[in-house]
């Protein structure tokens, strides 16, 4: 279903719910709830809800009461435990898709999503997506089990959200994230936060770090400037292959087991790319980049290359010319040798 239609239905649904349940929690706005629930002294750690992430989440407009319908005027003193909405009430299409997978037995919606912090897939970093899985699937163990058949397993897992391989979504695009060295000693990398980018930008506009002319479009020239700027040596661009549309059919697919699903799809699939920028609220904003940016040898990013898929056509021809050059001697000399074979036989006698 198109998101807009979903929104319309949900809006209508919410309207009906409000009509049908006037008895509950009249007047209690999300802000009222948050007055207490953002204060650990009042609600303790277990019932703490973070303010900013909620207000910036896709559920902000849904409001607390829509999901906790039975919360009463007297809450929390009424002794009732407010109800929790089932995600399927509003997201039945996703629910249906997920319910058909074996994984539905292993994890519920809430195991992966915090209902108070949900965001659309394009606003979530690949790192955060993997965080969802790593609560149950230990990162080191996954790297180890995948290394049994996957060359460069750690590199793959760092550059690919698990769902790019483990769901049916086939449209992959490249998102460039700005990452930084965690600390000088160990070389491990992590996403640069909005604050860190802000510091790097000298408290200016973070997007202008890369999008110098702030036209909401990343050109190759801008990428080159970013990659070459010595002021940016603490950060780098990491290309991640993200599904353009999220599917919840979490499973192990045979075609992902076949490396050429990605490694042969060719430059066409690699043409679309975005810069994903950390926003103050922790979400990510995608800025489209010039077509073929990640393919460009000189400007795109020094850290992105996929064997098979991002090969350069010009280089193919140069390679072919060199190899053909190696055949000139055997073929040319060989023919003359054949024609003059009598001379050598004579001299042997």
């Amino acid at each position, binding site marked *: 279903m198109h998101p807009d239609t979903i929104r319309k239905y949900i809006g209508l649904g919410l309207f009906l719910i409000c009509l049908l349940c006037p008895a509950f929690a009249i007047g209690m706005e999300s802000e009222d709830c948050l007055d207490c629930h953002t204060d650990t002294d009042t609600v303790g750690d277990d019932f703490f809800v973070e303010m900013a992430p909620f207000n910036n989440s896709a559920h902000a407009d849904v409001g607390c009461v829509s999901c906790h319908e039975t919360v009463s005027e007297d809450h929390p003193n009424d002794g009732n435990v407010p109800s929790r909405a089932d995600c399927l009430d509003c997201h039945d299409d996703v629910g249906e898709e997920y319910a058909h997978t074996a994984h539905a037995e292993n994890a519920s919606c809430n195991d992966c999503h915090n209902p108070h912090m949900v965001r659309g897939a394009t606003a979530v970093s690949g790192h955060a997506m993997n965080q969802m899985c790593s609560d149950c699937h230990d990162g080191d163990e996954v790297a180890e089990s995948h290394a049994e058949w996957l*060359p460069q397993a750690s590199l793959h897992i760092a550059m690919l959200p698990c769902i790019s391989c483990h769901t049916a979504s086939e449209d992959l695009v490249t998102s460039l994230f700005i990452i930084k060295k965690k600390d000088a000693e160990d070389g491990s990398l992590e996403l640069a936060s909005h604050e860190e980018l802000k510091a790097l930008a000298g408290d200016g506009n973070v997007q202008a770090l890369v999008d110098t002319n702030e036209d909401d479009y990343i050109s190759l020239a801008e990428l080159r400037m970013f990659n070459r700027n010595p002021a940016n040596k603490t950060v780098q661009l990491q290309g991640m292959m993200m599904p353009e549309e999220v599917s919840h059919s979490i499973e192990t697919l045979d075609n992902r087991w076949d490396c050429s699903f990605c490694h042969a799809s060719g430059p066409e699939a690699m043409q679309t790319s975005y810069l994903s920028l950390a926003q103050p609220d922790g979400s990510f904003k995608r800025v489209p980049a010039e077509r073929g940016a990640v393919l460009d040898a*000189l400007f795109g*990013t*020094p850290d992105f290359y996929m064997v*098979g898929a991002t090969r350069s056509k010009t280089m193919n021809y140069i*390679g072919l010319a060199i190899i053909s050059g190696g055949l000139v001697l055997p073929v040319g000399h060989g023919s003359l040798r054949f024609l003059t074979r009598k*001379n050598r036989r004579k001299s042997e006698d």
Partner: protein
Amino acid sequence: MSEKLRIYLQPTPVRIWHWLNAFGIITLCVTGVQIRFPEHIVIFDSYRSAILLHNTAGLVVAVSFSLWFFYYGIVARSMAKLYVPTVKDLQTGIVRQMKFYFLTYFLGWKNPHHATPKDKFNPMQKSAYLAIMFVLVPLVSLTGITLTNVAFLRDFVVMVGGLKILMNIHFILASSLCAFLFTHIYLATLGQTFFAYFKPMLTGWEEVEDDHHHEHSAP
């Protein structure tokens, strides 16, 4: 017919090294083609086995290169003598050897250079092997090893200009090595008989006609 003389031309370590290299490099070329063109060329049933084989063969060639370097440079101490062309080689040797390959060979003359353990290569071979063994093989190994450890060696990758540049260097060097392979194998058939030059690489011994031609070996 003149009398046959047998000389021990290729000691065992050199032969082992040569064939390790030969199988290694051929494997690398074949798997390399599949790795670059997976949708057109499928030689091994899976991409992953092509990659694993490529990485293993690459390591074998890199190690065997190091052993070769160690053997000739340190144990036998004959690297410079065998592989570096002398002034004389450059002034007259190369021209003489070219003249043989491209002219007098067709007229049925004998090779002006004759291999001895101390002077294995003709001036053309020396120059070619110098380029192959001191430039191509080390560089292609180095770029290959870097490509299997990109996260760890990132500073080096960036210094080179990025993964794509590194990849292109690796590819062009590898193509050159492949081109050399054709030439090398072909030239190896130019002995007195088609397989004359293959024998010493297998058994170590070369059979030479002990006639006056032998004088050419150390002019």
